[in-house]
């Protein structure tokens, strides 16, 4: 199954770090480099993957999904994406009741210097279906300057489940502006994991989810920000239907990077529940973490709560580990790893292992 796409060994390694791995069992695969789709292939008849431009031509209803959730006039970046003649990105559909066990992998790769990559992705999970996405984003090590703007729209049908795990490995000269939105219908579930372990010049993003009756949305962000990185990340979840629930969890380690982490939960109707936990660990005095948790209740019977913390590595924990014979460096490493080890609920065990593995790889590849 290897050598499906012409990539150098070096490139393959870079892609593997963000979860795009030709050796792993997947239900389908999508790869775009710069402005071109290199691969869009399902390995299972349960899923459909097409370049989004093709899907628009093939199905007349897809047209209505494009900018159906994200406002094209939201900002300059969405406007740029909208202006594209032919959108670059994927259309993924899981048909009603299909439970796709193996993850589907997608990857956007900036290969050439000075590229502005603009993407538009549409995900449709029909009622009662299940889909696990692993989305990698990576820039070639030789890219001196690059930009990635992306719009992603998730349509999650009644009782459907979509989990998406996004791993970014952009490099110190790339700026990134993803714009994502999800609509979770009655009893649906949307779990979004966002992992950044390597340097990036600037990322600014705040996905939005609207959750209908009995639905669930969970946003997890796991961020390691070395010096030179600047991130403004967060998410908004609107609980619109009765018994809708959500959770926002962010774990941020700043090793010199500047990080703003936002979270916003809006309880629009009675009987909704949402919790948020934003925890930051500063391991380098040059870094900063600014946690901005927001809760908004628009009805008297909502249950929303948050906890936030920003602090240094505890001296007690450090000296406890060192008194057992670990060097200070090793002790710090353990504490940081532990801090970032968020147990994401609602994921199949195999995927959990995959993600843990990916985080490890992403961490190992982090530039010095």
């Amino acid at each position, binding site marked *: 199954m290897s050598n499906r796409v012409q990539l150098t060994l070096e490139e393959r390694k870079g892609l593997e770090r963000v979860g795009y791995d030709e050796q792993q069992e997947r239900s389908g695969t999508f790869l775009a480099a710069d402005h071109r789709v290199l691969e869009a292939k399902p390995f299972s008849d349960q899923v459909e993957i097409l370049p989004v431009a093709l899907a628009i031509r093939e199905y007349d209803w897809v047209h209505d999904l494009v900018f159906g959730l994200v406002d094209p006039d939201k900002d300059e970046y969405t406007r740029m994406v909208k202006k594209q003649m032919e959108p670059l990105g994927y259309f993924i559909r899981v048909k009603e009741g299909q439970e796709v066990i193996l993850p589907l992998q997608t990857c956007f790769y900036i290969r050439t210097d000075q590229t502005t990559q603009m993407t538009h992705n549409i995900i449709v999970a029909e009622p009662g279906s299940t889909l696990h996405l692993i989305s990698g984003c990576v820039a070639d090590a030789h890219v001196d300057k690059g930009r990635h703007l992306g719009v992603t729209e998730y349509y999650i049908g009644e009782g459907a489940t979509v989990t998406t795990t996004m791993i970014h490995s952009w490099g110190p000269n790339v700026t990134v502006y993803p714009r994502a939105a999800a609509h979770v219908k009655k009893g649906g579930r949307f779990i979004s994991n966002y992992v950044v372990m390597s340097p990036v010049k600037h990322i600014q993003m705040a996905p939005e989810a609207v959750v209908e009756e009995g639905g669930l949305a969970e946003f997890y962000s796991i961020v390691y920000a070395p010096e030179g990185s600047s991130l403004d990340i967060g998410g908004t979840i609107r609980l619109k239907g009765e018994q809708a629930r959500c959770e926002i969890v962010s774990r941020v380690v700043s090793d010199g990077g500047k990080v703003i982490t936002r979270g916003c939960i809006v309880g629009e109707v009675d009987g909704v529940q949402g919790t948020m936990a934003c925890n930051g660990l500063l391991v380098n005095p040059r870094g900063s973490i600014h946690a901005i948790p927001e809760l908004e209740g628009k009805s008297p019977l909502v249950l929303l709560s948050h906890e936030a913390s920003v602090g240094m590595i*505890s*001296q*007690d*924990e450090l*000296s*406890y*580990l*060192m*008194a*057992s*014979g*670990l*060097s*200070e460096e*090793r*002790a710090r490493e*353990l*504490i940081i*790893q*532990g*801090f*970032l*080890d*968020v147990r994401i609920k609602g994921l199949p065990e195999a995927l959990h292992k995959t993600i843990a593995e990916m985080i490890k790889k992403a961490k190992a590849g982090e530039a010095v």
Partner: protein
Amino acid sequence: MGSVMLEIKDLWVEIEGRSILKGVNLVVGEGEVHILFGPNGSGKSTLLSSVSGLPGYRIVKGSIRFRGERIDGFRPDEIAKRGVGLAFQRPPAIKGVKLDTFIQAIANVSDCAPLYRELELDYLKDRDLNAGFSGGELKRSEMLKVAVQAPELVMLDEPESGVDLEHIAVISGAINKLLEKDSPCSDRSRSGLIITHTGYILDYVKADRGHVFIGGRIVCTDDPLEIFHEIQKRGYEGCVHRLGQQTIGDVS
């Protein structure tokens, strides 16, 4: 008489500018087990923490030698690497670090499985280190920690406090094994320094010497069982009156 493992001379230690240890003298020989008694707040834990080089314990006077080498001023990892282990009275919880990850990272023994089994800790392997551990679980996992380190100097800060009677036997078994209490004295290379309030540990672990700690110094040294019985009968001060005051320098 074997060689000296730990030698503390006229040790003065401050915490946040407050004088806590006020001239401690103590010599622990190779293969010996010493017991520290003393009221709450008298400085027992401070002494063990100072030997381990924990930050915040400022040594203002005196010296600590391990196998002849001065270790005061060394970092905790340097001291641990030389063969000093400390089971904490109150170990901190470390989120996200599994007990077993920690144990494997620090182990100097080739196989930890028998120690897990002996201390009945298998079920805690995948739990976050010390997070939400019950009182007894904490004490057993601290014992496991020290056992896998297999240090030459085994320091245990109240290893049986809050532990049920059956598990005191379990912990004591592990202590005896670690201190090679089944071997003849001349074959033992490990030494112990154990703090206890309850004295239960004395029913299981044969100790060579006891010391009473009051007001930041050792005020009396004698047979540990004798000391414990006197403390039970007359309290700490009474015990000192009865057994006689130790004078500075009278340590070996």
